[in-house]
């Protein structure tokens, strides 16, 4: 299993039905492959509640997710316009939002929409999801491509919201955010506390169960 699928499968363990879940672009999109519960319903902000996998023989170019990838519609699905879709998001009707991030700071704030020094050209639905989803899970690689920790003391990139996320899942570990602090709660298979320490700039508390240490 590659890194991205490893993260997605671990995120799936954090989700239990009944729940309405919104998946962001990238690693979050893969999460649906690992959620087997029928009572977990996927929402996509471009206007579908009840996203399911697509049969490759029946691709419909006008039935897509937020990443513009073809999807299927589950029995009991509904279609709606963008204002209604964001009323669901902003209005607190989505149980879980799973998002990618460029950086997460040690208080749980995330940056996932802009890079300093480059023209700011896109934000999409990220700020609305941060403002309105009941629970937010970040799914990201622990380090950037140049090997730097994405869990930082303070975000250098512009933040997406002043609201903290709840859970961060990386290819090395799982962190919970409580009262503006990070807690290391789980290690990915074969990863040690020392490995996490070496690759993490942010300050966090270790809160593993005894058998994990």
């Amino acid at each position, binding site marked *: 299993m590659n890194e991205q699928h490893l993260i997605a499968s671990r995120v799936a363990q954090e989700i239990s039905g009944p729940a309405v879940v919104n998946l962001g672009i990238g690693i979050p999109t893969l999460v649906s492959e690992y959620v087997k519960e029928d009572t977990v319903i996927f929402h996509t902000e*471009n206007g579908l509640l009840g996203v399911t996998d697509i049969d490759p023989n029946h691709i419909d170019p006008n039935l897509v997710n937020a990443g513009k990838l073809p999807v299927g519609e589950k029995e009991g699905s509904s279609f709606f316009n963008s204002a209604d*879709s964001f009323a669901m998001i902003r209005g607190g009707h989505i149980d879980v939002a799973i998002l990618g991030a460029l950086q997460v700071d040690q208080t749980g704030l995330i940056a996932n929409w802009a890079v300093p020094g480059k023209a700011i050209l896109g934000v999409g639905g990220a700020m609305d999801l941060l403002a309105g989803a009941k629970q937010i899970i970040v799914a990201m690689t622990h380090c950037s491509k140049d090997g730097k920790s994405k869990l930082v003391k303070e975000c250098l990139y*512009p933040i997406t919201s002043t609201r903290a996320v709840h859970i961060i899942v990386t290819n090395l570990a799982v962190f919970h955010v409580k009262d503006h602090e990070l807690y290391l709660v789980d290690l990915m298979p074969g990863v040690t506390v020392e490995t996490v320490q070496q690759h993490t700039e942010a300050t966090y508390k270790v809160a593993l169960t005894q058998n994990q240490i």
Partner: protein
Amino acid sequence: MNCMHKIKSSGIEVLDTLKNGDTLLVGGFGLIGAPLTLIDALKEKEVRDLTVVSNNLGESGKGLGLILNQNKIKKVIGSYFTSNRDVGEKYQKGELAIQLLPQGTMAEALRAGGAGIGGFYTKTAVGTKLAEGKEQRVLDDETYIFEQSIKGDVAFIRAHKADELGNLTYYKTARNFNPIMATAAKYVVAEVDEIVPVGSLNAEEIVTPHLFVDAVIVARKVLTKDGVKSL
């Protein structure tokens, strides 16, 4: 009753209403639900300094990307332009102004614009770069920012079926911004797969009632799984 006056034969015929400097609302999420036939007609029209309101500007050289490359757009309001590299290039050269809005704020601003609401307070983007310069207000212990509503002179929308009165239905996720934009412009043109007689649409399935729609054309450029095709 003669109810055929809204049915037009081509995109060219409806474009007379669009003037230099107008604000044009264009439906679609990328190319999905984008009015590709109307955009194609806009390619042939001499017009400049448009402000375009659309979630994206198509892709490079596709959809609204075509119009951008003809330098007809002065300003664009939307949520995600990253998928068309030409947008960044024009912006860096100072040839294009960009107003970036969170997608939900954009949708609500159009909904409000069509509903006679001047603006609204939202908690989205509070404390971020996109809230800079916007009025803040605390309501029930939560901080909100003020966002002004958006209205257009002309809207290009994509629907599935129209009846001869201009009632519209939509198809799957091609709906997106289209029904909201249909309420928010002075002159609304819908591009549809099929025009059917009055009475053949079930009143329960009509999403956009005809009073919002000024003109209807049949789509001649459509999105297929192999890309954009001419019919």
